[in-house]
């Protein structure tokens, strides 16, 4: 610390004792980033923005919300009608959950397409899957809070899944509910957990970022950064690109909030929860539908639960399931095709999750579920044995390559 890079004496004084400014300068300003990132790399920062938005609006909402079965529904309506701009805060929060999942799902499929989970980024990926899991728990409990019909019956269906656990299942469900049905104690604990889990997510996001900054971002061609000629400082190049991406994201988000605020919700949730009346079709929020389809595809209750959680579990071990050392799909002609099949499969599962569990929908759910697990458990480990990958470029800055350079690049990769 002989010569500080900061001119402002106060900043200099603080930074000498507590180097937060050096840290920010290093991680947000100079942070070397591959120069070939495409727009799919915008979704990480968008997810961060969505998380902050959810926390800020959520805290404001909690100031006006009453977690009691007799008052919850009316307190939400009071927010919508009597609290100044309460409708805006609530619609941002409500639609924000959907947009958070859209952004995160694109972020995950980006990782799958470009092999971002491969060495040395395995822990980065695993922390990401953990964030997804925490988000799902948080979103599920948040949906219960307005205490509408779908809140109540969704909570009943999902918590009942745990009763499939042999021997202790029923006791676990009673323990989760804090009673013998979804009731006031359930609502209270869900509110408490819905408030606290986002801060756990923030903690895991910080670890996710620490792991990211260890090796830096992956990139569309998936080869390692070879030197400074391959990178550019994060600021101003990616700060401005993230700002542009944020503006586009906000345009979609605002269109939903102001003009179609209930498009992604369910009308039944504007009917107050009634334990005596079961809705004709109980459907979870759209972002859970693929998992819901897997759950219902398996004829056995315990089996369904295991497969549903298994669909997330395979993501945790993906870095070791995929035996190919080539990251980007651009150089994996066969995997590239299967990637799009997997994406379509997940969308099909989402569609099937919204349909009643009968007739052709059940058969399709089973086929789609089988493909999902085939893709992760069989295709990922075995494909590298039959797939001939395309030659990798020598470096990010020299994507056009001569034969010799390619051979040496391949050799370098093989050694790893």
């Amino acid at each position, binding site marked *: 610390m002989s010569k500080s890079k900061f001119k402002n004496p106060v900043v200099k004084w603080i930074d000498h004792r507590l180097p937060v400014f050096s840290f920010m300068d290093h991680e947000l300003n100079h942070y070397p980033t591959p120069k070939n990132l495409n*727009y799919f790399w915008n979704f990480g920062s968008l997810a961060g923005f969505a998380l902050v938005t959810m926390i800020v609006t959520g805290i404001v909402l909690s100031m006006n919300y009453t977690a009691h079965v007799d008052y919850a529904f009316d307190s939400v309506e009071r927010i919508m009608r009597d609290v100044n701009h309460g409708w805006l805060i609530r619609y941002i929060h409500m639609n924000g959950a959907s947009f958070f999942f859209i952004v995160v799902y694109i972020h995950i499929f980006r990782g799958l397409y470009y092999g971002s989970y491969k060495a040395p980024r395995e822990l980065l990926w695993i922390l990401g899957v953990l964030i997804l899991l925490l988000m799902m728990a948080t979103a599920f409990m948040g949906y219960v809070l307005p205490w509408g019909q779908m809140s109540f019956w969704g909570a009943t269906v999902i918590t009942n899944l745990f009763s499939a656990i042999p021997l202790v299942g029923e006791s676990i469900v009673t323990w989760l509910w804090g009673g013998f049905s979804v009731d006031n104690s359930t609502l209270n604990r869900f509110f408490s957990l819905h408030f606290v889990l986002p801060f756990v997510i923030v903690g895991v996001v910080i670890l996710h970022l620490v792991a990211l900054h260890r090796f830096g971002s992956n990139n569309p061609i998936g080869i390692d950064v070879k030197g400074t000629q391959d990178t*550019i400082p994060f600021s101003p190049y990616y700060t*401005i690109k993230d*700002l542009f991406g944020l*503006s586009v994201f906000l*345009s979609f988000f605002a269109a939903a909030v*102001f003009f179609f*605020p209930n498009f992604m919700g369910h009308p039944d949730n504007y009917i107050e929860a009634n334990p005596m009346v079961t809705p004709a079709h109980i459907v979870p929020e759209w972002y859970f539908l693929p998992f819901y389809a897997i759950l219902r595809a398996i004829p056995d209750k315990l089996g369904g639960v295991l497969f549903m959680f298994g669909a997330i579990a395979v993501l945790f071990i993906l870095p070791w399931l995929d035996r190919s050392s080539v990251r980007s799909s651009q150089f994996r002609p066969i995997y590239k095709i299967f990637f799009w099949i997997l994406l*379509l499969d997940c969308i099909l599962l989402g569609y099937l999750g919204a349909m009643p569990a009968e007739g052709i929908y059940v058969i399709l759910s089973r086929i789609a579920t089988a493909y999902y697990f085939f893709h992760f458990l069989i295709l990922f480990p075995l494909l590298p044995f039959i797939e001939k990958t395309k030659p990798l470029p020598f470096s990010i800055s020299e994507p056009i390559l001569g034969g010799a350079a390619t051979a040496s690049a391949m050799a370098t990769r093989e050694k790893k």
Partner: protein
Amino acid sequence: MIKYSSKLFSNGILKLFLSLIIICFSSVSYGAGEKINYPQLNWSFSGILGTFDRASQQRGLQVYKEVCSGCHGMRLLAYRNLKAIGYNEDEIKAFASENSVSTINDDGEVIERPARPSDKFVSPYPNDKAARSANGGAYPPDLSLIVKARPDGANYLHALLTGYIDAPADKKVPDGMYYNKYYSGNLIGMPQPLYDDGVVYADGTKATPDQMAKDVTAFLAWASEPEMEDRKRLGVSVMLFLLLLTTLSYFAMKQIWAPIKKQ
């Protein structure tokens, strides 16, 4: 490097992603079960710039008051809210005072006093059980959120209110039930509420069942979403701001990246 990213986009992968997202949403129609098609009306409040028709809302309030309120409450609405559909304070005071609410006086006795603008709409029954008992077991739902609480709510409501026809010969209609072509299962506990000249409109509009159904739907749509006009108005400004921000940040990005792209 630019080669790779631009190639990616010329491949249309982004477009594909976006269209998949849209498919993903439209798949979530939850539309299982028998599908009944309601006539699709052209409501003044639909669309991104749509606003409520004040005259229609006021007529709708009259229909609610004279026809619906005998059985259906609107517990989330306060009399003061009627200011938003064009009534002044004296009118609201007079309207509220036609109802009475029970309160406790200084001697601890339960007494009745006229409702004030700050009171919520007084429900016709003291509790759910009384409501069921008075209606042959069928519960007349509260109407505060009815348009939001039904898929395609406004069209559904209008269709339901005008959907009473004679039952087909092969259909048995039990006592206390009525036949409605738009109700799920066709048998509804609510008798046909709207008949020609069921109310007398002060503005001279002819009170046909269709007209009354449209008016009361306009009123109830507002009751479900009283913030709608503010929301859309603010939305237009926000969208214009975001358009500007997107444009500016796009050109700023292009300028900042120019030297990198040239390499």
